[in-house]
């Protein structure tokens, strides 16, 4: 835990379920990743995930939000939560899961928090495996990665508008008969 404090752009760190999460300032993400790769020895970027926290534990209700003929914001999907989860600083979080290929398989999660419309530096020069990962998060979540060699839609059609994995994007598909969503 101690040497994680020397990561450039270090904000805070937490240890939960046996995993260390280091929150990093989005502006210094590339230096942090280069530091993690060269000095801390995390030579493989295993996964890169963006999460949308819109309506997180709002009104003590859990679960999926969605509007535009999708789920209704005010219709609680479940009963109230026993314990309100901690409030998230901003709407989006990007988690970089790193793995060091050495004894004990140490893993680290670098997390940076963004508002909608913010952009973050691409880490493709640090780990080439980030190429498709970032394209997928741009495609499904709408996070802009500056400096990415060719940031384009990966999984969806090129003429698809909107980013489906956002919480305010309706689930789509067709209303099922005899269900409240009809």
């Amino acid at each position, binding site marked *: 835990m101690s040497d994680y404090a020397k990561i450039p752009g270090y904000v805070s760190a937490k240890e939960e379920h046996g995993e260390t999460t280091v929150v990093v300032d989005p502006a210094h993400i590339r230096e942090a990743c280069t530091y993690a790769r060269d000095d801390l020895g995390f030579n493989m970027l295993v996964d890169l995930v963006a999460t949308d926290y819109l309506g997180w534990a709002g009104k003590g209700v859990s679960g999926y939000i969605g509007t535009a003929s999708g789920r209704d914001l005010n219709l609680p999907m479940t009963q109230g939560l026993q314990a309100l989860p901690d409030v998230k600083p901003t709407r989006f979080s990007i988690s970089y899961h790193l793995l060091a290929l050495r004894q004990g398989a140490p893993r680290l999660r670098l997390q940076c928090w963004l508002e909608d419309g913010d952009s973050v530096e691409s880490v493709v020069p640090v780990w080439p495996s980030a190429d498709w990962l970032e394209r997928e998060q741009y495609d499904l979540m709408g996070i802009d990665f500056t400096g990415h060699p060719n940031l384009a839609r990966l999984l969806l*059609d090129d003429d698809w508008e909107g980013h489906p994995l956002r919480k305010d*994007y309706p*689930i*789509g*598909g067709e209303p099922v008969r005899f269900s409240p969503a009809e």
Partner: protein
Amino acid sequence: MADRLRDYGLQSERLLWPTKGPSRFEEELGVEELEQALGITTLEKAVRWAQTKSMWPDTFGLACCAIEMMAIVGSRYDLARFGMEAFRSSPRQADLLIVSGRVSHKMAAPLRQIYDQMLEPKWVIAMGACASSGGMFNNYAVLQGVDRIVPVDIYVPFCPPRPEALMEGILRLHEAHLAGVPPAYERRQVAT
């Protein structure tokens, strides 16, 4: 004209059932014993017989159903017994398009193009719940059922269908074609 197979007098007889007597549609369509005794038949019936005996499927494997579709070519559920073991990869040489798996919107256009490039008479089997109705993926990415873009002859349920289920679907198709039921693009005017 949303006519149903029943209007063609096709009862759901099972061909796989060996002890079954002559199936209902042969009696209903009035096949005289003389014709059967002498083995004379109309040219159209002979052509239909030839078409069902070597209906070549197109390898259109999409998702999990494709793995089960591969299994019916294996030695246990051998499809060669029905003259269908040659899985053609180009639509020009294929008669039967087995849509095995979930069709995403990005794959819809290639699917439609391959269907158009197949030569008549052609049939479509929607294999599995995802191809028949979008299955458990009622969301933005999956086409809710292949019959929105391609006229489908046979829907095979389950997820994924057992090889026996797919073979029964194929045999029903043979049975229907032998009985004179025209392929789907003639019965249903869905974007022939």
